[in-house]
């Protein structure tokens, strides 16, 4: 084998590398990290970080006083209400819109159609991503060419909601219908009806082939997978299928638009991405970015569904047309068929494993159904491979390929986990099966191969992306496995007395990222008031996760003050610095680091003032308990005194300000080990999940209470993916689900107890050692439950959801 760079790289970082290459790569991806000293203070030496600080907005939330977008209604007495006419056919052209009856109704202000002046002509993507978006610009605000049942065709503004809804019903749309296709495999086979003409889409994505309804194709390989598969190994292949999962955010997509006294267009909106939304609206409506203000009040859940500009253009267009503030609140039914969902996928996993149980190669292929438009299609599919595969970065040969295809079905988008749940099901289910086939303990099998501290993870970079290859500097997988095993009672499982009941435990590992390597930006600034308090302005977005609280804890830790002495203002593009938004598990890591830098910047000025007032050198001074104190003399001066002194006292008065900006090529993975304890009835296939345990290595938990909440919520969402049908469609691609009951969200009695375990490690690149926490436990229940059922009764369910009927039919096959 050659020792040149190319080969060494393709070889997956195995023993054959020359020293030079190893050195260079150590330099590029060092293990030792030059981190600020306060990053690794022991948790019990910290004042704010690592503590269960009360959530900043909780008292408002529990008393019902917090304001979400719809609660701004009362502020605008001349508010008009929007409703949308949506396509009732899966595919075709609008040939006429008769709005005369609607326009004649009392209280109807305006009806907009694709032809109306206020409606932008241009194409865009709803994906709220960096610019230019890695998603095709393939949709319009209102469409003449409709591609799914639910495509927006016309919009109404009226005096009240009821009139707007009645007007929508009075509008008659005529169509010329085209053939349609709803099955992704059919859509991709070449003879299916075509959704897009060549050249019709702007910002096309690599691998597009509209003749075959393919929106994108991606692939990456490390080593030589085919050679390994052809070698002297056991080759296993399995195929897995996932549901069309709904975000089911309890607050519906809601957005209010108006023009303010300075002629600027303001959107109060339930979004995860205020800055992206501002940019997207500016391009779409041809308004300078500076003339749009996007602000987010409390947000009632996002989970990726609000990382999309789904509703905002409608109230903006209507407000431009009527010169009135306009509120658009999607209906619950619209949430299921016209907002966004998780991409349903088929994922095929193949491995080559030696007699001794060494994995020689892993090969994953995903067919993703992106629905009518391509938002987040390529990037979500990329994560099917790039998130779970690095778990086994010691495997020398790995390949991932995906085809992302259009069908005449509702639009998919970003959703918590972002492709990783689909990939994790396939990989963790597959490896479990392989271990059992080889007679190996599934946990020990994983232990032999999983990633460790010091590993150079090349799989994360194999699909391109310069910064994606990474050194692993923190990894608590072994501890996650150990503590999870113990909590679920892995070693002393008791079987039920009844012969037809069998109990089993399944486990699965997971890895995610923390932010998008090389593609994120967060910024923050901190203003000191003369009373020694602070205003923290941060672009980072709290959508219910507690991010604002984490920011306060980080700032308070640096400044040595109480969290209550900091007021946070987050996510208002007129007031807060730039931020990419709440997605990719980046908030605490990226925006939090910006907050830390801003606080350190402010602290430096504060120490200067302390030095003047105490007449001691800065090096001797520290902040703590709301003061600057001298570590030698013990003298101190209150922050309040510094505030007044800086503002009113000295000839060289100044407003103490700190600023911080953070972007990085790093994206350290958090890890999780999931366990599910299940009893299956061999006569009926019915099963009872006694408990879910998930142990998560999120680095340092900035607020352990909030981190547990994130873990449990994510695990619940993951459980739903394992046992509920999601959004089912009829033959025409019409969503059959109209409300929560039909959707089948597991309720409080239907959800098993969830035990979250924090396995804390220290990630040197993160603020105070933090990595991400909110996505990694979204990935693990489907494989763990599939593995548990297999453990209990020896049958394997590969198509989600796992139901008693499916288990029963497999049990029948088994006894045949």
């Amino acid at each position: 084998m050659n020792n040149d760079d190319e080969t060494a790289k393709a070889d997956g970082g195995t023993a054959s590398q020359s020293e030079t290459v190893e050195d260079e790569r150590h330099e590029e991806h060092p293990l030792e990290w030059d981190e600020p000293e306060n990053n690794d203070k022991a948790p019990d030496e910290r004042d704010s970080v690592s503590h269960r600080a009360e959530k900043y907005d909780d008292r408002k939330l529990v008393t019902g006083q917090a304001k979400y977008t719809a609660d701004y209604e009362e502020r605008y007495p001349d508010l008009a209400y929007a409703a949308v006419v949506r396509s009732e056919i899966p595919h075709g052209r609008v040939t006429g819109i008769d709005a005369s009856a609607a326009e004649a109704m009392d209280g109807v202000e305006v009806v907009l159609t694709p032809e109306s002046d206020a409606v932008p002509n241009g194409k865009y993507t709803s994906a709220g991503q960096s610019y230019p978006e890695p998603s095709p610009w393939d949709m319009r605000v209102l469409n003449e060419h409709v591609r799914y049942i639910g495509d927006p065709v016309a919009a109404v503004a009226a005096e009240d909601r009821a009139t707007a809804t009645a007007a929508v019903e009075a509008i008659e749309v005529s169509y010329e219908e085209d053939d349609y296709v709803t099955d992704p495999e059919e859509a991709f086979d070449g003879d299916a009806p075509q959704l897009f003409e060549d050249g019709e889409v702007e910002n096309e994505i690599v691998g597009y082939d509209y003749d075959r309804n393919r929106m994108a194709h991606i692939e990456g390989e490390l080593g030589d997978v085919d050679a390994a598969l052809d070698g002297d190994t056991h080759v296993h292949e399995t195929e897995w299928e996932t549901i069309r999962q709904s975000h089911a955010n309890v607050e519906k997509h809601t957005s209010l638009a108006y023009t303010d006294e300075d002629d600027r267009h303001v959107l109060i909106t339930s979004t995860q991405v205020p800055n992206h939304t501002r940019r997207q609206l500016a391009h779409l409506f041809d308004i300078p970015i500076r003339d749009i203000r996007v602000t987010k009040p409390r947000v009632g859940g996002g989970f990726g569904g609000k990382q999309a500009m789904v509703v905002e253009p409608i109230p903006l267009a209507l407000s431009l047309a009527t010169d009135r503030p306009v509120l658009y609140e999607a209906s619950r039914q619209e949430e299921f068929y016209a907002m966004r969902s998780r991409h349903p996928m088929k994922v095929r996993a193949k491995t080559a494993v030696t007699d001794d149980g060494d994995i020689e190669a892993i090969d994953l292929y995903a067919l993703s159904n992106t629905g009518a438009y391509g938002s987040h299609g390529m990037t979500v599919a990329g994560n099917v491979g790039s998130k779970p595969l690095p778990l086994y970065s010691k495997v020398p040969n790995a390949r991932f390929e995906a085809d992302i295809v259009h069908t005449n079905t509702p639009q998919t988008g970003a959703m918590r986990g972002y492709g990783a749940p689909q990939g994790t099901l396939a990989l963790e289910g597959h490896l479990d099966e392989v271990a059992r086939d080889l007679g190996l303990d599934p946990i020990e099998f994983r232990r032999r191969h999983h990633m460790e501290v010091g590993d150079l993870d090349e799989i994360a970079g194999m699909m391109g992306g310069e910064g994606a290859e990474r050194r692993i500097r923190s990894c608590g997988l072994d501890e996650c496995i150990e503590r999870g095993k113990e909590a679920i009672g892995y070693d002393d499982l008791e079987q039920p007395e009844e012969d037809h009941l069998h109990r089993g435990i399944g486990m699965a590992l997971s890895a995610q990222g923390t932010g998008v390597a090389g593609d994120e930006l967060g910024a923050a600034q901190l203003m000191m008031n003369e009373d020694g308090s602070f205003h923290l302005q941060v672009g980072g977005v709290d959508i219910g996760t507690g991010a604002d609280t984490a920011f306060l804890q980080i700032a308070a830790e640096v400044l040595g003050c109480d969290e209550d002495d900091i007021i946070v203002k987050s996510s208002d593009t007129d007031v807060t610095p730039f931020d990419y938004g709440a997605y990719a598990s980046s908030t605490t890591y990226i925006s939090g680091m910006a907050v830390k830098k801003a606080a350190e910047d402010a602290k430096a000025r504060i120490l200067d003032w302390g030095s003047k007032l105490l007449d001691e050198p800065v090096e001797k001074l520290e902040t703590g308990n709301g003061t600057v104190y001298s570590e030698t003399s013990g003298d101190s001066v209150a922050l309040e005194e510094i505030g007044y002194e800086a503002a009113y006292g000295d000839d060289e008065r100044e407003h103490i300000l700190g600023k911080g900006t953070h972007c990085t090529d790093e994206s350290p993975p958090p890890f999780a080990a999931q366990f599910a304890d299940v009893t299956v009835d061999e006569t009926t296939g019915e099963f009872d999940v006694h408990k879910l345990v998930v142990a998560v290595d999120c680095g340092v938990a900035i607020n352990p209470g909030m981190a547990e909440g994130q873990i449990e919520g994510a695990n619940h969402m993951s459980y739903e993916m394992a046992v509920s049908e999601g959004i089912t469609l009829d033959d025409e691609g019409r969503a059959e689900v109209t409300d929560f009951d039909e959707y089948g969200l597991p309720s409080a009695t239907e959800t098993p107890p969830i035990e979250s375990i924090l396995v804390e490690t220290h990630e040197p690149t993160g603020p105070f050692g933090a990595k991400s926490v909110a996505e990694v436990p979204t990935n693990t229940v489907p494989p763990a439950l599939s593995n548990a059922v297999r453990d209990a009764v020896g049958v394997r369910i590969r198509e989600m959801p796992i139901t008693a009927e499916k288990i029963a039919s497999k049990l029948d096959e088994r006894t045949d």
Partner: protein
Amino acid sequence: MPKTGGYAVDIELTINGERTIVEAGSETDLATVLRQHGYIGVKCGCDGGTCGASKVFVDGEVRMACGMTAADADGSEVQTVAALGTQDDLHPVQQAFVDNFAVQCGFCIPGMVIQAVALLDSNPDPTEREVREALDDNVCRCTGYQKPVEAVLDAADRMQGEQSVAADGGQPASLGPRGADSTDCCGGGCDE
């Protein structure tokens, strides 16, 4: 979608202790009327009846405010979440939700709190199963119900004057040494 319309009627309501006469359409639902009058703690997460966010007390009974007309409530005493406690003086159930980190986005929480208060009124010492059953038609997308259920059990303990888990620092045993640190657990809201 909220139901409005019908002919205009005057409706007498006592909302959170204040007697008011409101004019509303005979078909307008109670949630809409309450929200129009500034009681924004009444949340609407669905098109009616499947999320539980709009729960209020009507003459002491838990009702989904979206599921009845305001006219049906004529002459009634209505209590929204705002009647239970203030930010400075939370109801024990609200306090337990805060201390147990049971609140994430908060959109479902007013309905949950109302339901939990109703449960503890009728059953001061519920089992975990009974708590789950009580919350069964309150949809929470954020929490997976684990912490809300723990919060309600904790509130039950507090209301019975027993020492609660959260008054101990609210730390599950798995957290180790930091479990001893109680001062930051609840912002001073607990007994310590």
